[in-house]
């Protein structure tokens, strides 16, 4: 267990991969702007949030390497996101039912 100081990389850093992700991100941005132009009524927010979630998932997984890193980070991150999500939901219980 000596090698834990420097992070072993199961994955080899590459330019191409990141650029590919970047292109996807840009196209997703175009998609969400374009979709917002349509009149989707109540679904505007939904689509916008779904696209934003996909975009941030890409950034977190690839740019921030969470996909290639130790699973503990994934665990941490999930716990935090779930907590945040629950905070949103139960706050909404007040506002929605007033």
């Amino acid at each position, binding site marked *: 267990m000596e090698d834990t100081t420097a*992070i072993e990389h199961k994955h080899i850093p590459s330019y191409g991969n990141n650029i590919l992700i970047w292109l996807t991100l840009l196209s997703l*941005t175009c998609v969400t702007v374009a979709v917002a132009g349509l009149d989707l009524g109540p679904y505007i927010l939904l689509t916008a949030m779904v696209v934003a979630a996909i975009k941030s998932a890409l950034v*977190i997984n690839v740019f*921030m390497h969470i996909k290639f890193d*130790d699973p503990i980070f994934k665990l941490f991150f999930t716990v935090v996101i779930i907590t945040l999500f629950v905070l949103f939901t139960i706050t909404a219980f007040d506002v929605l039912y007033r």
Partner: protein
Amino acid sequence: MDTNQIAPAHAATQHRDDFGSKMGMWLFLFTELILFGGLFIVYMVYRIQYSEAFHFAAKELNLALGTLNTIILLTSSLTCVLALVALQKGNKALSIIFLILTKLLAVGFLVIKGFEWGAKISHGIYPGSAELANKENGEIIFFGLYYSMTGLHALHIIIGLVILSFSLVFIIRNKVTPTNYIKLETAGLYWHLVDIIWIFLFPLFYLLH
């Protein structure tokens, strides 16, 4: 639990723990995430209460500039990660170039943001202005949120710029090297987080028409 169940044991000689630094950074990022999370809760509550007014007020915002800024920030995220890749591949010069590029893009973002704010302010829309006071409550809140959220985000960009500057200096002085790049990596993590926040801010403010 973590795969490194047994951490380097009490080795008095060993003070470098990259994994630990990264963990510390992630934990810090969680606090940032939740800091903004609090603001998003505020946003949610008011959006539920004033959804009409929000749609109306959002028309005042400039979609083109918002989209441009999104693209700029996404690109800066790319250059930031490429700086790390370059360093890992041992290409110090390229890494420095990418890092400078990142910072230029960040400054660009701030300049555009500045123009946007400036335009609003010259139209008399800023917290406490008489113009705003005459608007509906929901619109006051919308712009209150707009200024607080993008303002706090801009503050984070500025902090990010400072952190990136330190990384740059470290690379130049060879404190951050192809074998010891954790400082650049954590700085990058911070930068990507700022990007993620914007990914959510953008649709919530600009795509409401």
